[in-house]
C-alpha cells in the first residue's frame, strides 16, 4: 500500500500544552479518560548540593505528542477477533463500531495505547485521522490546533524524505513492534528508547 498517511512531530517546539489533545476531544466529543491524542512528559536529571549550599543540576525535559500511528504493522488489527479493527487503503486504522465487542485485545496489544475503551458506548475508539476533515481538504484537528506548529501530517514517504526516519525516542516503545507511520524531530534533550536517565513523569495524564 503506497501513499500511507502519517504524522510528523517536531519535539523541539512542543511546549506540552495539549491543544492537540483537546481539539481532538472537542471534535469527537470524547469524555474525560478517553484521549485519542496524548502528551507524555519525559523528565530527568540530578541535583547536587555543594558544601556552600548552592546547587547544580543537569535537569532536562521534553514532550511527546502521540496519537494512533496508523502503523504499517497494526498489531491491533492483527489481534482483533471480529475484524472491527481494520486498516483502510490509505493506511488509516479504524474501528467498525458495530462489529466491536469491546474485548479490549487491541488496547492490550498496542504499545502506544492508541485504542481506547469508551465505557459509555461499550466499544473501542481511536484516532481516525479526521478522515472526514481530510475529505474536505482540511487538516486533522490536532494538526490545525497546534499553536507552536509542532504537528504535521502527510504521506509518510514524503514526511520521511523531508524530516528523516526517527520514530522512537524515550518514552515511546521500539518502532519495530508495529512500524509506526510517524516521524519525530527529536528535542535536543531527547533520550533513546530504554533510557533510564529520565522517566515518564505524568503517567496519569497519558
Amino acid at each position: 500500500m503506497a501513499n500511507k498517511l502519517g504524522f510528523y512531530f517536531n519535539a523541539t517546539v512542543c511546549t506540552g500544552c495539549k491543544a492537540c489533545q483537546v481539539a481532538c476531544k472537542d471534535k469527537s466529543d470524547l469524555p474525560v479518560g478517553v484521549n485519542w491524542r496524548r502528551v507524555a512528559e519525559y523528565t530527568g536529571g540530578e541535583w547536587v548540593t555543594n558544601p556552600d549550599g548552592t546547587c547544580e543540576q543537569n535537569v532536562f525535559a521534553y514532550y511527546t505528542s502521540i496519537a494512533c500511528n496508523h502503523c504499517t504493522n497494526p498489531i491491533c488489527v492483527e489481534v482483533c477477533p471480529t475484524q472491527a479493527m481494520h486498516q483502510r487503503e490509505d493506511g488509516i486504522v479504524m474501528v467498525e463500531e458495530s462489529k466491536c465487542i469491546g474485548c479490549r485485545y487491541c488496547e492490550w496489544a498496542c504499545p502506544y495505547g492508541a485504542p481506547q475503551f469508551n465505557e459509555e458506548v461499550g466499544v473501542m475508539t481511536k484516532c481516525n485521522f479526521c478522515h472526514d476533515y481530510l475529505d474536505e481538504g482540511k487538516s486533522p484537528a490536532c494538526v490545525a490546533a497546534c499553536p507552536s506548529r509542532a504537528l504535521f501530517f502527510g504521506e509518510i514517504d514524503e514526511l520521511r524524505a523531508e524530516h528523516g526516519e526517527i520514530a522512537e525516542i524515550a518514552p515511546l516503545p521500539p518502532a519495530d513492534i508495529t512500524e509506526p507511520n510517524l516521524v519525530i524531530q527529536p528535542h535536543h534533550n531527547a533520550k533513546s528508547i530504554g533510557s533510564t536517565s529520565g522517566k515518564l513523569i505524568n503517567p496519569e495524564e497519558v
Partner: protein
Amino acid sequence: MVAKEFLNDVITSTIMTRRSFVKWSAIVGGGAAVASNLAELPGQLGVGSVMAQEDENVVWSSCVVNCGSRCPLRLHVKDGVVVRVETDNLGDDEFGNHQIRACVRGRSVRQRMYNPDRLKYPMKRVGPRGSGEFEQITWEEAFDLIADKLKELIDTYGNESIYLNYGTGTLGAVVAKSWPPSATPIARLMNCIGGYLNHYGDYSAAQIESGLPYTFGNTWADTWVTNNSIEDIVNSKLLVYFGNNPGETRMSGGGMIYSLQHYKKVSGAKMIVIDPRYTDTAVTAADEWVPIRPGTDAALINALAYVMITEDLHDQEFLDNYCVGFDKAHMPEGYEDEDSYKDYILGTGADGIAKTPEWASAITGIPAQKIVQLAREIALTKPCFITQGWGPQRQANGEQTSRAIPMLSILTGNIGIHGGGTGARESSFGISMVGFPTLSNPVGTYISVFNWPDAIDHGPEMTATKDGVIGKDKLDVPIKFIWSYAGNALINQHADVNHTREILGDESKCEMIVTVDVHMTPSAKWSDILLPDTMNFEKMDIAVNGDASSMGYHIFCEPAAEPMFETMHVYDMCAELAKRLDVEEEFTEGRTVEDWLRYCIDETRKSNPDWPDFESFREMGIYKVSNPGDPYVAYQGFREDPEANPLATPSGKLEIFSSRLHEIGQTWELEEGDVISGLPIYVETWEGVSDPLRETYPLQMISAHYKQRTHSTYGNVPWMKEVAPQEVWINPIDAEKRGIKNGDRVYVYNGRGRTHIAARVTPRIIPGVVHLSEGAWYEPDEDGVDQAGCVNVLTRYRPSPLAKGDPMHTALVEVEKA
C-alpha cells in the same frame, strides 16, 4: 430551548477505567480506576461518529479572558447549540500573517459554556454570607434591592463607600468587559450617580507598574515601561529571561511563545532562563537554565554588576551620558551624600558589604563561578535582550526586583538599540480601537488594588503615606458596597483566604456585595446578590487589541446562541438599574450594545480611516494588520538624542538613583522590614529566603500561572483538569526527606491555612522551593482544609512597600504526606 434541556442533567458521574501506560515506561503502575465527573456536552453524537456538517453555522467569537492573548474561536452552531470549536484557519499560515491559533483552554470552551456552574437566574443570599445559600428572585426584585441599597449607602456614606472590585474574567471586549473596572458598564453607571472609590494597580503586575517608572519615567502606572518588540530579537545575540514564561502564560498562537520560538530560530541567539522552575518556555526555547531561589533576583543582579564593574565590562560612556546615580560624579543635585550604585555594589557605601558573587551565591543558590560566567557572557555578548516576566515582581520586595533586573540593560548600554532592550516585558505591534466611553468619575480617591479588605475593615484609618491612598490624605469612609463583576478576587484570588473570610463574614461592615458573573465561583458564593450575565458566545462584541508580535488584530464576535435561562447582558442590567436611579438617558444615551459598537468603530475610523466599517468588519470576522515598519525599539529616541528626547524623570535621564523614591522612603510610614530606596537594592523580606521562620516552615512557595486555567477562569472545566491536574511541585530532594512519592496526596500548610493536593515530584524545581499554581477554586471541607489546591489559603495579606500590591510569591510552607 435546546440548551436548557441539556443543562438540566448536564453532569453524570462515570467510572472510567484508565488504560495502563505500563508499556510506555517501566516505572508506571498498572491501570488504576479513577472517578471522573463528566460534563456531557450538548450535541453529543456517538463517540467517533462523523458529524453532519450541512446544517451547521459557523460564527467568529473570542475567548475574552485575562491571559494576555486574544484568541479567535470559530464556533460551529447547530440547532442553537455550539457543537464544535475551531480556531483561526485563514490563509497559508506564513509567519507574519499567520493563523492566530487558540490555546488549549479556548479549545475546551464548550465545557465553560455548557457548565453546570452557570448562573441561571438572579438570586439573593438567604444564609450567612459565604454559606452559599441563595434563593431565586426576579430581575425586578434584584434591581430594586440593589438600587435601594445604593441610594441608602450613598446618602449615608457618600460615593467613596462604593467600590468596584478587581475582576478580569471578561477581558478584552468593548462593551462587555470587566477590566479595568473603570472601563466597565458598571463604572459608567456609577459615574452617572456620583462615582465610586477607584483603585490603581492590578494583581498581575502591581510592583513593576509602580516601581519601574521611577527609573524610566512617569509614575504610578500611568505609563508602562516597555521593552523592544519580540520581533526585534532577530537582531539579538543573547536573550536573558527572568521569570518570564510565555510557554505557560501566553501560549496561544496569538501569544508570545510562538513568536519567541520563531524569532529565536531566525536570530540564532542563545537564550538563558533564570527561574526557580524549568518552565515549558525553558523546555522549548532555552539553551541554559539557571535555577534561582524566589525573591533573590536583585541579589543576583548585584553580583553580576559587581563582576561587570570590577572587571571593567560595563558601558561607562552610556552610564555617564544617559543615567544618574551610577557613581558619585553623577548623583542628582542635592543627593551627593547618598550612596551611588557603584558604592552600594562595591561595598564602599553605607552597608559596607561588597556584593560579590560569593555573597550572592549564599542568597540565590547559584554557584559563584556561574555568576561570574553569567556576568561576562551578558556584558560581552551584544546586543543582548533582557526581559522579566511578572513573577519576580510579585514578591514582598517586588518593586526593588523590577528595578534591579533592568540594571543589566543599563550597565551594558543595551537600552534603545536594535537587539537590545530595557529588561521590562516584551512588546508587540498592535493597532488600537476606541473603547466604550464610561464618562469620568467624580470621586478622585484611589486605594491600591490589593488593600480593599483594609478599606472594608478600617477605611478611615487608611492614609496616603501608610496605605498608599491617592487623591486624599486619608479615606473618609469605609467600603460599604462592592460590585464584583467577572471577578474572583473577592475570596479566591486574594491573599489569605481565611483572613478575607473574617472581613467579609462581618455583614455589618461591607453591607452589600453584588456579583455579576456567569458561573457560581467561590467569590460568587460570598455575594449577597447574584446577577447572571450572558456569556461571550451569547453576545455581540469586539475582541480588541490582540497582538501576535508583528501583527495586530481584532475579532468581531457574533452571538452564537441565544442567552440561556434568564441570563442578561451586563449592559442591559446597568440600563435597568439606571432607570431606577433616574439616570437612564445619561447612561444609555439611547444606545443599545450594538449601537455602542457602531459608535466605537465610527470613532475609531475618524482617526484611522483604514479601519473597516461595522458591516465589513462583521463580514471579515477577524481584522489583521501587520507591522509596516521596523521592529519597535523602546526608548530609541532617547538613545539617539537624549537632549531632544528626555525621559519623563526629574533629571530627564535613566534614574539608577531615584530622588523621588528616596524621598518616599524617608517620609512614608512603612512596616518593619519594608524598604523603599533611591537605588534598586536587594532587600531581605518576611518569609523570604533568610527568614528565621524557615525553621518552622522551611519551604519557599511560589504560585505561577498554569496551563489548566487563566488565573481561575476555566478552573471548573473537566477537560482542563484532565489536561493539567492541580499539583504541588516539589524537588526529589525535598520529597525524599518527607517520604513523598510522585502522585502522593500531601498537605501543604503554614500558620494561615492548609490545602490537600497531589504532589508532582519533579527535578524541574529548585530544592527548597515548592510551586502550587494560582487559580484553583477554593473548596474548604468542614474543618476548613482546602481540598482543591487553592494557593491563597497559604499566601499572606501584607501589601508590598511602594505599590501596596500583592506579594503572592512570597510565602513559607511545610509539606507533609497526607
